[in-house]
Structures are given as structure tokens and as C-alpha cells.
């Protein structure tokens, strides 16, 4: 049954799919991915300057995943992820200034400086974090989907996690309950091939993460996570499946992170050549930009204009963050209980 559903889901062509991929939407994809890229580069720079501390996990290389998925959502759908979360927040429409201010530990940050890189939330944008414990967000996302069913809405919850988290037991506890109760949750495994320094092959008995739902009758599909249009199409199918009350769906995004696991990762577990080759051939932003130019959807001037706009946004975010005050000492003891 799972196999059939899997095949049906991946073969299904949403009616009017092409029409919905308007030039405006495709240009927005490009711009949104670029915003995440430039934002993360700036975050890396600020980390190097000592303005961002602790753990800082950059999303560079994986931008197509969140941008494509977000386009498949309605505003009332929810998003939750683990700690490599800056891209998800920007894709959800959270303010880059508020995110950067949180990264720099300022009061104007989304968590008033008390959460940091791994712990940010926006009820307004239906972004439920930002969770630092690998895999712990998966039952929580399942619970958000449970609340949708309880409330009789047809909202769905996107629950992102990595190939590392995919080996946590609570992921499978969640799969079981989600299928048992037909909860509208899309599990998105961002397979960037390395759980910190351990490659998928060294950590996973079944490396095809989209098949990991078979034991629970949850359909899944593998997606080229470096191709924003492929992500968008798969995302729309999966969201339609969950929204129709058919239960959870697993999307495995084959992607790659260009930077280390965190800022302090020397990345000795993979070769420089491996990284270089993927950056040159599969960069989700460059390849997509070239495609849009070839197809006449963007011109070189558009690329320049978008890049200029995005750099301006990121610079403003950075200035806002570094100009903002740190939280007052009294903030130490607030927000512990309601």
C-alpha cells in the first residue's frame, strides 16, 4: 500500500502546475534563495568578528529546500525544524533584522537575545522553532499536526530534520502515531549527507530516508533538493496529500551543505574536491539562475538588481543587529513562567 501510494504521489501532476510557476514566482524563488545565501554569509562574517557566539549552523547549499517547500504552503500552515534554522525563518517571512539581532544576542532579536541561533520562534509567521536537540522537534511537529486535527482545521505542519536526526528513535515513535491517527504532517529529511562529521553511509543501515516510512505505511519520495522547482512540485503533492486527510508524507531532500557542520568544524571528513565539485555543478542558486536566464525569464540586469536589493536587506539587518542593545540585566529572570 505504501509503495502504491508512494508511486501515485510522485507521479501525480497537480493540475495547472505549469501555470502556477509564473515568472514572478520563479524570480521570487531565486531572490529568496539568494537572500538566505547572503544572510548566512553575513552571519559567518559576524561570527568571525566575535559578534555571534556559540553554535552557528549555516544553511549555505540547502536553500532550495526551504524556498521550494514554503511556496507550497498556506499562511496558516506550520513550520518546525532543528538547529540549522536561519533559512527556514527567512523563508517563513520572518524579519532578517530580528533574526540577525537574535544571532548577535540583542534585545531586538526574536527571542530578546535569550534563544540564539538555534532557538527562535514566530507565532505570527507560524514558525515553531528552532530546536537544539537533534530529533526532538519531530514529535513536537507531529503534535502541531495533532492540534490541527483536534481543531478540525485543514492546516498542515512541515517538520524538517536532517539525516542525522533520522536515526533518532523518537522520529519513528512520531511516524507511528502520525500514520495511526492520520495526522497532517510532512516529514522533510534534509539529507545533506553528513550528520556532523559522520556520512550517511557510516551511520545508516537504510540510506534511502524516504523509504523509512514503509514500516509504518507512510508514503515517501526522494527529491533533488538542489532544484527548487523539483522541491516545489514534490512539496505541493505532499501538502495536498496531508491536507486531504490522508496522513503524513515523507520527503527526502537530497541536498548538500557547502560549509562545515558549525563554524568550528574543520570538515576533515570530506575532501575539498568533493565540496568544490558540488559547488560548481549543483549550486541551487547558480544553476537555477542560469536556467531562468536561458529560458528568458530573467536577464543579467535582473540578477544584478536582485543581488543589490538582497545585499541591502542583509546589510540593514546586520546594522540593525549590531546597533541594537543587549537585553537588560532584568531580562535574566523574565519569561521563565507565564
Amino acid at each position, binding site marked *: 500500500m505504501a509503495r502504491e501510494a508512494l508511486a501515485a504521489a510522485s507521479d501525480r501532476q497537480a493540475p495547472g502546475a505549469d501555470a502556477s510557476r509564473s515568472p514572478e514566482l520563479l524570480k521570487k524563488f531565486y531572490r529568496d534563495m539568494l537572500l538566505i545565501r547572503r544572510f548566512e554569509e553575513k552571519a559567518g562574517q559576524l561570527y568571525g568578528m566575535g559578534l555571534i557566539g556559540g553554535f552557528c549552523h549555516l544553511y549555505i547549499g540547502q536553500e532550495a529546500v526551504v524556498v521550494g517547500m514554503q511556496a507550497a504552503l498556506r499562511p496558516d500552515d506550520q513550520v518546525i525544524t532543528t538547529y540549522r534554522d536561519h533559512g527556514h525563518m527567512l523563508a517563513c517571512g520572518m524579519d532578517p533584522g530580528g533574526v540577525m539581532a537574535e544571532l548577535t544576542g540583542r534585545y531586538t532579536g526574536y527571542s530578546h537575545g535569550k534563544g540564539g541561533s538555534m532557538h527562535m520562534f514566530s507565532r505570527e509567521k507560524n514558525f515553531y*522553532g528552532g*530546536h537544539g536537540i537533534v530529533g526532538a522537534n519531530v*514529535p*513536537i511537529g507531529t503534535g502541531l499536526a495533532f*492540534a490541527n486535527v483536534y481543531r478540525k482545521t485543514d492546516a498542515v505542519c512541515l517538520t524538517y530534520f536532517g539525516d542525522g536526526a533520522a536515526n533518532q528513535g523518537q522520529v519513528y515513535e512520531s511516524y*507511528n502515531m502520525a500514520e495511526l491517527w492520520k495526522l497532517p504532517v510532512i516529514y522533510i529529511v534534509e539529507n545533506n549527507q553528513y550528520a556532523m562529521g559522520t556520512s550517511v553511509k557510516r551511520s545508516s543501515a537504510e540510506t534511502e530516508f524516504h523509504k523509512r516510512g514503509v514500516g509504518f505505511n507512510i508514503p515517501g519520495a526522494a527529491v533533488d533538493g538542489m532544484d527548487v522547482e523539483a522541491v516545489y512540485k514534490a512539496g505541493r503533492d505532499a501538502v495536498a496529500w496531508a491536507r486531504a486527510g490522508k496522513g503524513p508524507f515523507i520527503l527526502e531532500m537530497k541536498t548538500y551543505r557547502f560549509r562545515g557542520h558549525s563554524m568550528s568544524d574543520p570538515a576533515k571528513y570530506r575532501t575539498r574536491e568533493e565540496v568544490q565539485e558540488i559547488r560548481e555543478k549543483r549550486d541551487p542558486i547558480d544553476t537555477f539562475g542560469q536556467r531562468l536566464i536561458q529560458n528568458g525569464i530573467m536577464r543579467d540586469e535582473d540578477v544584478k538588481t536582485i543581488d543589490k536589493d538582497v545585499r541591502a536587506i542583509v546589510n540593514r539587518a546586520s546594522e540593525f543587529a549590531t546597533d541594537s542593545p543587549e537585553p537588560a540585566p532584568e531580562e535574566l529572570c523574565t519569561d521563565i513562567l507565564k
Partner: protein
Amino acid sequence: MTQILMPALSPTMEEGKLAKWHVKEGDAVKAGQILAEIETDKATMEFESIDEGRIARILVAEGTEGVKVNVPIAELTQEGEEAKPAAARAAPEAAPAPAKANGAAPAPVQAPAAANLADPDLPAGTEFVNTTVRDALRDAMAEEMRRDPDVFLMGEEVAQYQGAYKISQGLLEEFGERRVIDTPITEQGFAGLGVGAAFGGLKPIVEFMTFNFAMQALDQIINSAAKTLYMSGGQMGCPIVFRGPNGPAARVAAQHSQDFSSWYAQVPGLKVVSPYFAADAKGLLKAAIRDPNPVIFLENEIVYGRSFPVPKLDDYVLPIGKSRIIRAGTHVTLVSHSIGVGLIMEAAEILARDGIEAELIDLRSLRPLDTATVIESVKRTNRVVTVEQGWPICSIGSEIASQVVEKAFDYLDAPPLKVTGKDVPMPYAANLEKLALPTVDEIVAAAKSVCYRA
């Protein structure tokens, strides 16, 4: 002649009701045949014969309540014995008559008259109804579920089975399977799912069959439920209750028998409640369900069946974080919570006979911990003994002792003493288990010691 004895059908059962006989005198029975139905405080169980034979006499009539475990309830004659005339049976020592079994039934444990349970905020003339802690907890959940459609209960065996300890009895029938949800055995998963539902605006009550199994879910309780309000700068919040039996049970050994009070009491972002009396169980559980924060609600399996007066009010809600002086005294302050309150009440009666008047404080909540009431009491009595079932190191008593020493040092006439569970995993053997638990004798000895009385 074989005597058939009243069986123990749960780890904590001491007596039960002989609800129904499936055989009558003279019937032949086979091994494995159902003889009777026996009602414990948790369930009605079928009771099978171990031997083959013929029922010679039924000693306890059906419908008899309070039949003690190990009392003979019937006699079985085996092959070869059958010819003996009934008159030849010389077994005067056997078996009390049904009426005696009934009469011998002890009354359910009551709050001694000495306990001052009157709540100053109760309207004058409030009627009290004797209620088990079990029913008080159920009533609290039912009332809150009637009041707020966002409140739901989930956990293992809470719905169709009516609760492993029968706390959720009748809730499935009243509220349906949308709001009373049986989960798979998957503590980390359903605790996390509950947290997500709370983030999504619902108010889950998550039942752990016992808090021993909450260990599997500890990350979700501490890292997700307790900390997210802080980590989100006040945006999120997690209105959830994690509840279930905590503390040593009876004869279930180390993994199923321990007190987690001080573990949870240490965590900022949680509230922790651990009542003893039925009224507090009801009023505090209602408060916990309404609280916008994650609340750990620690119950006690052995206390579930005890009855105490509960005020008959439409909406009895108590504040979390307030202890109560349940007995005034001038010579020594005894502080405890949960089942330990029963122990200090017994100790106080013994001490009174020796002229030592103990002031008793039931903490009720462990976070916030109402140390102010303890300190004020110590300023009057100048002596304090803490009592708990948890381990001694970094215990609730350790915290109270530290605060008393810090804030009432000049009032102390003796060092604070702790009576706790012993610093060992819980043993299985009955004698060792007894040694591992705090006893009334130890409390009496500690109280006398701080009073410098032998």
C-alpha cells in the same frame, strides 16, 4: 482438604470485595476454572482454581467487602477426601464466617481528626464529601474538560482500559475518543506530541503510567516544555500537565519504585505539585490544568485508594505553591509531601503521647517551594525534621535544610534532620524494601533527637 485463600491481585492490594462466585458448594472444579470475581480498588478480576476437586464449603459469601488478602474464602476437597462426611471435618481454626470477614474490614484510611484541613477561603458551612484521591483526580479532570474544550487527556491505557490505575474511569464515555486518547507505548513520542499540541494552543494532560517511564520522555519535559518560553523571549509557552503516580510502589523493585520529586523541583520553567489529601489533589490538579505553564503533577499509587473529605463546591481550585500547616505544634516542625504526610501525621500522634507537640507542614507544591511557611514555623518551634521517600542527596529536605539554616539560623536549637529513603536502589525482598523506606519510627526518633529527648 485445601483452603482457597483470598488472592492478592495487585502489588498494593491488601483487601478486596468478593464480588461473585462462579461455583457453588458441591461443584466439581478443574484447574484453571474460574471460581470467583474479585474486585480490587483498581479492577474486577477473575480468580481461577489451581487444583482439581470439589467445592466443599464457601466461607465468604459473594458481595462481601473488605476481605483481607490470604483469608480462606472456600474449601476444596480433592479426590479420596470426598467420602469424608462434612461433620468429620475438624477445622475450627479455618476461616472466619462471612459476617466476620465483613466486620473485620478496616475502614478506609481517614484523615485523623488532628489534621486541620479547613481552608480559610472556603465559604462557611461548606459540606465535605469523603472521596478517594483516585476519584478526586478524575473529578478534577472531568470538570476541567467540561469547562474547556481545549483540554484533553492522552496516555497509555487512559481510554478503553479506563486507566492503568483507574484514574480516568468514565472519561472516555463522557468525552469520547477525540479527547481521551490511548497512545502506543511511546513516552518520548507522546510527551513530545503533547508539547507540540500545547504549542499549537491546546491544553494536554499527559498521563505517564508511572513517572518511572517519564524518564524516557525527560528530554521533552525539560528541554522542550520547560525552556521554550524563555528561549522564545516569552512568545511561546507550553500549557501542559504531565501527571501520574510517583514514588515507591509495593514490591516492584528498583526500576518501578522511586521518587522523582527533587529531579523536577530543580528545573526552572516547571511547576511541580505533589499533594497528599484528596481535596488538594482535586484543587491543585484543576489549577495545574488551567496553568499556562508546564506542570509536573506527582501522584502516589499507594495513596490513590485513601479517602479524605473534599469540599462540595462547584469549582474548587487551589493555588499552586502554597504549603499548609495541617497540625499546629510548638516543639518541632515536621515537613513532608505526598505519602510522607501520612507518616508525619502518625509520628505526631506518637510524639504527642510523649509530650512533644509537632507542627506538621504539608508542602503540597515543590516548585514553587513554599519555604516561607516552613521558616516561620521553625522560628516558633526552633527545630525541623524533613520527611520524604526520595533519596537523601540533593533531596527536597536538603533544600529545606539549606534554606532554614540560611534564613533562620539564629532560631535553630538543633541541626535540621532529614528522614529520607535510603541511598540505594529499591530492593525487591519485602524486608529489604521496608528498610529502604522512611518509617514512622525513624521520624519519631529524629523528632526526639532534635528535641534532645531520648
